């Protein structure tokens, strides 16, 4: 009887989840009037003949001209019909093959001629966000909502810090993000563990190992005179690259370190509570045991986050006749560096959280 009830509820929830994804898609695909840029809906496409192009590295590609028919869906030109030329290539690296029904942002050159600026892609993004939130809520119920809540809180904080950084034109970027990281830690650990001694132990370990990691990195930079560190390969940089890189590493490793410290401190507190007679040394050793089994997979999480996105640019370098070594240095070396530094942070956390737990946790914590 009870089982039936819960399964019935799950079907209802699944239905609601699908419904909310559909609603999200429907609303987003009819939000054109909220954009200032003119949006153009394609109603007919005539494709020209593909043109073979070969570059100096003998890469073959094909470019195709498209004649688009369609109309504007928003703003003062609403419902105006317009025909636009578009060119796409097989590689689709900086162009789009458009088809009937696509919506694009356009730039007017005069009243009757315009070019395609970019695709309107908010619908798939909103769909994906709705899907992720529904999955979290269906599978984890209330816990799912807390996860979504903590993501929102962290995102807002993060953008506040960026705002402060921009208002000061990127001065004190490390200090700025160090303060932000501390606030992040306090809030996140508070949400996960509550305000108690365990949380303070975890907080101390997180702060200690993050500071230690950054120091190790800076010392290594000093000893090697930053040989093989190509700041010029950092993307989207508008301010001094080195402090920005330090800030990136600092924020990047924080989540993993908090994750790990929480895990180790919570387990050790339970252990000490169940067996109050064990010594500080034994507590430290069990902490190391727990830590060494989680650190390997955790290091790989960040490794793939840092490395995967270097793929397109590395590929482009290789296809433009650069050597493997040069393509690596210009695109992947900073990713490898961040992975190594955060891995050091993850290992340090094992030591520090086991150490602080062994001296401070007495087994009488709630």
């Amino acid at each position, binding site marked *: 009887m009870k089982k039936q009830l819960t399964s019935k509820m799950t079907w209802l929830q699944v239905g609601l989840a699908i419904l909310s994804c559909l609603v999200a898609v429907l609303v987003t695909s009819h939000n054109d009037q909220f954009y200032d840029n003119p949006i153009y809906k394609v109603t007919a496409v005539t494709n020209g003949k593909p043109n073979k192009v070969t570059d100096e590295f003998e*890469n073959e590609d094909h*470019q195709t001209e498209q004649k688009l028919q369609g109309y504007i869906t928003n703003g003062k030109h609403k419902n105006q019909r317009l025909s636009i030329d578009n060119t796409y290539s097989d*590689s*689709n*690296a900086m162009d789009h093959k458009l088809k009937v029904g696509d919506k694009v942002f356009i730039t007017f050159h005069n009243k009757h001629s315009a070019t395609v600026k970019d*695709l309107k*892609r*908010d619908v*798939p*993004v*909103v769909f994906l*966000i709705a899907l992720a939130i529904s*999955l979290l809520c269906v*599978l*984890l119920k209330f*816990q799912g909502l*807390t996860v979504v809540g903590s*993501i929102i809180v*962290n995102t807002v904080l993060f*953008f506040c810090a960026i*705002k402060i950084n921009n208002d000061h034109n990127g001065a004190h970027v490390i200090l700025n993000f160090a303060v932000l990281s501390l606030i992040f830690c306090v809030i996140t650990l508070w949400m*996960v563990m509550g305000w108690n001694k365990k949380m303070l132990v975890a907080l101390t370990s997180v702060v200690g190992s993050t500071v230690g990691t950054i120091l*190790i*990195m800076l010392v290594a930079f000093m000893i090697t005179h930053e*040989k*093989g560190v190509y700041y010029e390969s*950092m993307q*989207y940089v*508008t*301010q001094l690259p080195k402090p*920005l890189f330090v800030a990136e*590493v600092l*924020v990047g490793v*924080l*989540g*993993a370190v908090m*994750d790990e410290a*929480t895990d180790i401190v919570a387990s050790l507190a339970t252990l000490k509570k169940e067996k109050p007679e064990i010594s500080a040394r034994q507590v430290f050793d069990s902490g*190391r045991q727990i830590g*060494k*089994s989680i*650190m*390997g997979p955790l290091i*790989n*999480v*960040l490794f*793939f*986050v840092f490395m*995967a996105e270097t*793929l*397109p640019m590395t*590929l*482009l370098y*290789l296809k*433009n006749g650069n050597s*493997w070594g040069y393509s690596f240095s210009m695109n992947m070396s900073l990713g*490898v560096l961040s992975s*190594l530094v955060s891995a*050091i942070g993850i*290992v340090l956390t094992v030591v520090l959280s086991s150490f602080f737990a062994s001296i401070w946790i007495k087994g009488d914590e709630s």
Partner: protein
Amino acid sequence: MGTITLLGIVLLVLMLVVGGHQGISGFLSMLVNFGIVFFTIVLIAFHFPPITVTLIASAVVLAITIFWSDATDNASTTAFFASIIILIILVALIIPVENWAKVGGFGLEDSEELEGLSVLVGINFTKIAICTAILSALGAIAEAAIAIASGLDEITSVHSEITAAQLMVDGVEIGKQIIGTAVNTLFFGFFGNALALFIWLTNLHFSIGGMLNDKVFVNELIAIIFSLIGVVLTIPVTTLIMSVRRGRVLAKKNLENNKEIK
């Protein structure tokens, strides 16, 4: 000595001191994973089909990350099958969404870097974006699967009489515990990684609408969400596989007991 070499040595020594034998295999798995990622890129540059190459590489990466961790045999086998199933589900989601959002290739923000580079190289960059999304989720899937499988394995070894159905309930409980922290690891990783981009975009006073349509930003954002979905799916899938395996073990036990009684 280069900075990367020095930091690599520091890491190796630290991992050896803290984890001993286990530390070395953790270090090696990172090294081998790097080799696989680089080799994948080289193969794609030689015009091997990008998605196929990435899927094969992903299976190898998952196997290495999971079997070289110090989880028990039962836990790592379960985690491996679970992560392969999640990989398949995720790819089935990633391919249509990436083709829908068309975030492959480069945006206007990349113009400076692209100076002097030919972008008409005859490789479909939408497919490359699919590969990137798959690769970024791999570590997170493996970690979550190992964590849940190990937790469940410990329960089965302590409560040797636990049934498959009870295990399902416990799996969701363990999943709830790990999900909050796993999400933090992912999100801070991506925040840190995309810090420069975020600073750039907010400097240009992009509105929320502008960001949700910006190619480079959306590319980063949907990669996070795919990984998040992968981690969330790990909970039911790993638990299901563990309880199916548990069911088989119990059935075998019953059979043996019945034989003994006869």
